[in-house]
């Protein structure tokens, strides 16, 4: 072996980033090749969390599928519940019967879910750079929202709250006041977090200009969510394909420029403020009335054949469900269009060449790669 070949071999190191790695965003792995400390190529490996949900749903009645779908994205389960409910509502014709209050409670739950997920991801942004204070505060703030979830639905993480025809339960007495108190507690501490994250010279040095996604890739790869909004493109499913009660709420799509990690963190920070505002609006506008339509017998209910695609804005981007029914009492096929599916495989693999190894974890957090929704 010549000296040049040895030198060449020595320059290339294969590195497995994950599945057991404190910087990885869940149970997945990236097989990367290194030259010095620069990554030259990378392949995303998923499948460590595959449970075969789409297969299991073919064996379960419609109502039995709801405990399954919420586990598709662990940190943000409500989008999944809503999407399956919306798909079944549309195909069965129940959509016209969902009462107003039910729709408002659905919107409330979706927005609370976005709030807690954004709080956690913002903590992840700075946690991936090994700074511990802000994640501690942000995850404690998230727990305020989880407490309200527990009060409303009975579960901290998995709620199984939105079903076809509306929601499972009405708001408890005094919920609005307690929610308001929690929102105020969160708002009070947010300036501290800003101080630690956005004014921190370490974060600014490592985030500004790092991980810039070119604008041409948006349509080419159908990117969505904060990645697109950080480029200054106001694209948001809540505005573009309005669902539930979002058309009646007053909000602007958050955008900024830069398209780097800092810009994406900034979009998330602004969306936290937006979610807090939206939750207040929803609680103010909440009408009285029934919260659920009269449901058919869940053991014998069948849905006529049809297929549809419903979508909602998760914090990571556009989440969609492709639902096919065939007239039986079980769903024929549900296929989840997960935002991480594009962001975590195609986009990440395209972004990796040229990235410094130390920036890989912050990059993955800023794409908010959520492995369980990539493999279901």
């Amino acid at each position, binding site marked *: 072996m010549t000296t040049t070949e040895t030198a060449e071999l020595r320059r290339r190191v294969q590195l497995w980033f994950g599945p057991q790695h404190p910087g990885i965003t869940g149970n997945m792995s990236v097989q990367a090749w290194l030259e010095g400390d620069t990554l030259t190529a990378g392949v995303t490996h998923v*499948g460590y969390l595959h449970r*075969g949900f789409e297969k299991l749903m073919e064996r379960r009645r419609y109502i039995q599928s709801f405990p399954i779908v919420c586990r598709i994205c662990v940190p943000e389960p409500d989008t999944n519940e809503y999407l399956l409910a919306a798909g079944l509502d549309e195909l069965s014709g129940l959509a016209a019967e969902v009462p107003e209050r039910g729709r408002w409670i659905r919107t409330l739950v979706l927005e609370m879910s976005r709030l807690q997920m954004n709080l956690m991801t913002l903590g992840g942004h700075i946690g991936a750079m090994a700074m511990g204070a802000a994640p501690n505060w942000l995850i404690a703030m998230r727990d305020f929202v989880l407490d309200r979830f527990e009060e409303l639905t009975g579960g901290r993480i998995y709620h199984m709250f939105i079903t076809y025809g509306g929601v499972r339960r009405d708001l408890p007495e005094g919920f609005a006041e307690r929610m308001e108190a929690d929102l105020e507690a969160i708002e009070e501490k947010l300036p501290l977090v800003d101080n630690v994250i956005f004014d921190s010279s370490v974060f600014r040095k490592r985030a500004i200009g790092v991980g810039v996604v070119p604008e041409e890739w948006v349509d080419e790869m159908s990117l969505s969510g904060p990645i697109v909004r950080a480029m200054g493109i106001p694209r948001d499913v809540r505005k573009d394909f309005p669902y539930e009660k979002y058309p009646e709420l007053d909000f602007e799509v958050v955008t900024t420029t830069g398209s780097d990690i800092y810009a994406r963190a900034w979009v998330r920070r602004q969306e936290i403020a937006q979610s807090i505002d939206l939750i207040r609006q929803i609680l103010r506008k909440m009408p009285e009335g029934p919260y659920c339509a009269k449901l058919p017998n869940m053991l*014998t209910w069948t849905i006529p054949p049809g297929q*549809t*695609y419903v979508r909602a804005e998760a914090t990571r981007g556009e989440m969609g469900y492709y639902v096919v029914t065939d007239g039986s009492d079980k769903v*024929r*096929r549900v296929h989840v*269009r997960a935002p991480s599916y594009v962001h975590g495989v195609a986009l990440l693999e*395209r972004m990796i060449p040229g990235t410094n190894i130390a920036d890989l974890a912050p990059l993955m957090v800023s794409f908010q790669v959520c492995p369980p929704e990539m493999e279901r």
Partner: protein
Amino acid sequence: MMHILDEIRERFGAEWQNEQRPDLLQIGVQAKTIVPLLTWLKAHTPFVQLTHLSAVDWIEDGEFQLTYLLTDPKAHVSLMVCTRIDREQAEAESIHALWPQAVTYEQEINEMFGIHFPGSPRQGVPFILEGWNDIPPMRRDFDTVAYMNSHHPSRPGREHTDPRAYIGKVFGERGYLHDDD
């Protein structure tokens, strides 16, 4: 937006068309027209984004359905293009040259349904499963309970009851029906 469906029918021929929602159009076409149709849609219409690619197993017809979902990001309308292919010789043309992220979708469909996309870069490379030696699991004739029973032993004492059968056993045959059903 109905005119886009009419235009597709004139240019490429359509088996059926449907307006599921004002923002979701559906059309069924022949399998051989898929790639020309999608190329034309991407080049000459505002439907430039590939949002989703999925497959459905219609085992009773002996066919797989492939569903391509395109989105017009300006006018906020989606177009669902469906086609059927033979289940025995499951093969479809790859669209990875049009949209790079289609590689992942095609890789997953190849693994989960056994549909082959010739020319797509990662065909046959395991994506989700590892060391899988049965028929592709998302096919309807794959029995997940039988596979579980023969591969993943469970702790003795667990009982499985179908809710409908169980309620019928406890409350009588029609016990699971409400009075007004």
